[in-house]
């Protein structure tokens, strides 16, 4: 009897929440729809857009941005932000280039590079955790410091003649550029870790509500460190891919890479308050950012407009995500009130 009553209440709740479901679907699939729309618009506007070489070009352009976006996404899921991903990559590029030029074998140089990324992440997390700083300020400090360190090491000049990584940066496997394969492999690995493992589940929990996760017996501190360390390692990987592509280590990267990465993460609806995130959507977000840049070039729009578009996109993405979330909350609250009224 009692059980029957409950069942009814819960079912009724489900029936009324149809508008909530609609909003959720919008939130969950909106980005896919947007990407499709973008492809449609550009293919109508430019005959060469949908050609094989151009699409591969978009993917290649996306491969580096998407690695930074993935690194950033892990930190954002955990409820923080990392502004230092680009200088970490620059530092790693320089160190790997110097190691290779000093005759260190490729595998070891790559390992050293990833290790440097690991340490940078560890440093960021330590400052945040032990000096009680916000991630924004801590990683801003890292951003500035590392930029200076790289300039000091290189004297502001690129390191040329790094050929050992050319196969990674410029080679192809089965006709597909290797950076694209690196992107796919990294996304597949991180995607599985985040959706299928204990680690992913707990990281999402800590990002969503750190205190609740702690009270459920999760070792919170580990999950504060892990995303920054993973972010450092993936950024290092991006730096190594860039080194391979250019054949030289650049002391400074364009600032726009960080903006692009954060925009991709925002497009993916990985709320900047943490606890949510689909790795596949981060990839879609990166592809959108790369597609817009590519499409505008094809349409002979000044590259300055790319900045304007990406900036507006970031604002609209975050606004839309917030608006939909608030609408969901409002709708489910009003549903609850209605239910309460019905009970009384």
């Amino acid at each position, binding site marked *: 009897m*009692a*059980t029957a*009553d*409950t*069942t009814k*209440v*819960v*079912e009724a*709740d*489900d029936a009324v*929440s149809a508008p*909530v479901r609609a909003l959720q679907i919008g939130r969950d699939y909106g980005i896919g729809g947007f990407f499709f729309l973008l492809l449609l618009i550009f293919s109508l506007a430019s005959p060469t857009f949908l050609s094989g070489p151009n699409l591969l070009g978009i993917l290649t352009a996306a491969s580096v941005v998407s690695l930074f976006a993935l690194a950033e996404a892990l930190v954002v899921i955990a409820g923080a932000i990392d502004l230092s991903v680009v200088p970490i990559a620059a530092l790693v590029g320089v160190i790997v280039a110097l190691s290779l030029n000093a005759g260190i074998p490729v595998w070891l140089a790559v390992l050293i590079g990833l290790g440097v990324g690991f340490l940078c992440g560890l440093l960021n997390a330590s400052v945040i955790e032990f000096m009680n700083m916000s991630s924004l300020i801590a990683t801003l400090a890292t951003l500035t410091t590392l930029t200076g360190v790289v300039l000091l090491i290189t004297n502001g000049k690129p390191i040329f003649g790094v050929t050992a990584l050319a196969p990674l940066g410029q080679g192809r496997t089965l006709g597909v550029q290797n950076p694209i394969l690196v992107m796919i492999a990294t996304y597949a690995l991180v995607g599985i870790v985040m959706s*299928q*493992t*204990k*680690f992913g*589940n*707990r990281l*999402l*929990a800590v*990002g*969503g*509500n750190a*205190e*609740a*996760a*702690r*009270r*459920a*017996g*999760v*070792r*919170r501190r580990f999950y504060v460190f892990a995303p920054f360390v993973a972010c450092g390692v993936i950024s290092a990987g991006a730096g190594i891919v860039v080194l391979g592509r250019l054949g030289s280590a650049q002391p400074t990267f364009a600032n726009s890479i960080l903006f692009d990465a954060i925009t991709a993460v925002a497009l993916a609806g990985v709320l900047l308050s*943490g*606890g*949510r995130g689909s790795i596949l959507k981060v990839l879609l977000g990166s592809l959108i950012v790369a597609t817009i840049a590519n499409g505008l070039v094809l349409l002979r729009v000044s590259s300055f407009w790319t900045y304007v578009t990406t900036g507006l996109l970031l604002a609209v993405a975050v606004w839309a995500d917030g608006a939909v979330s608030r609408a*969901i*909350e409002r709708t*489910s609250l009003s549903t*609850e009130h209605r*239910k309460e009224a019905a009970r009384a």
Partner: protein
Amino acid sequence: MLEARELSKSYGAVKALDTVSFRAVGGEVIAIVGDNGAGKSTLLKVLSGAITHDTGQLRVGGELVDFRSPHDAEQVGIEAVYQDLALVNTLDVGSNIFLGREIPRKGMAGRIGLIDRRAMRREGREALRDLLGVEFPTMRRTVEMLSGGQRQAVAIVRSASRLEQRGRGVILLDEPTAALGVAQRQRVGMLIKRLASKGHLVVIVSHDLPTVFELASRIFVMRLGRLVTELHANDSDLSTLVGLITGAIEPTDITKVVADDDATASSDINRSSRGTK
């Protein structure tokens, strides 16, 4: 099996806990009552490791313990349902119930950390049905989409199902039925009785005094961070309890009742309550 000695905890000038001592054994249901801000939740949080006390001692099964986190308390079999529920709104029901105890996949996949989400949803659904009689149509729904009562059910089931996996333990329930309907309240009552009959210690904080009388064998009254007295549910009544909570009756007015108590526990309490004057 659970013994507190002179536990104190201050928040700035506020003494949220003031030399609280008590002792309780497995199989008992004890209740903690008191007005808003009396320190009930603070006491429960200290017992569950969610916060650390400033001074005093805590023993579990005779062993001195020093909880640094809820993880430590869980290791010795203490589970808690918090007043604010402490659920992760962005995770689904199954993930919340099994957070920190995710069910591994079978074989090699489980050993490298892969979890069985389907099993977590299935077992979560069964636990909700078996323990509280609550049916969830979809376990994929994130907790933020649940009603207050459904959230409370999830929080209770999470702790109770963890406790049931142990031989003996302690469950701390802070206002477990505040958001529940009539039928679910009864189910929680049944659950509490069953857990106690299996030898677990149940500590319940509630403002629902008739239920407290029905479930608990002993009732601790807190006022301004102090555990002012202890009543046996059998030889006391609602009006006495209300008087004690509000301060209309002083514990010294009813020392006769307390004098019948277990010697150590009540003498501690008497000493501390006299200390106030």
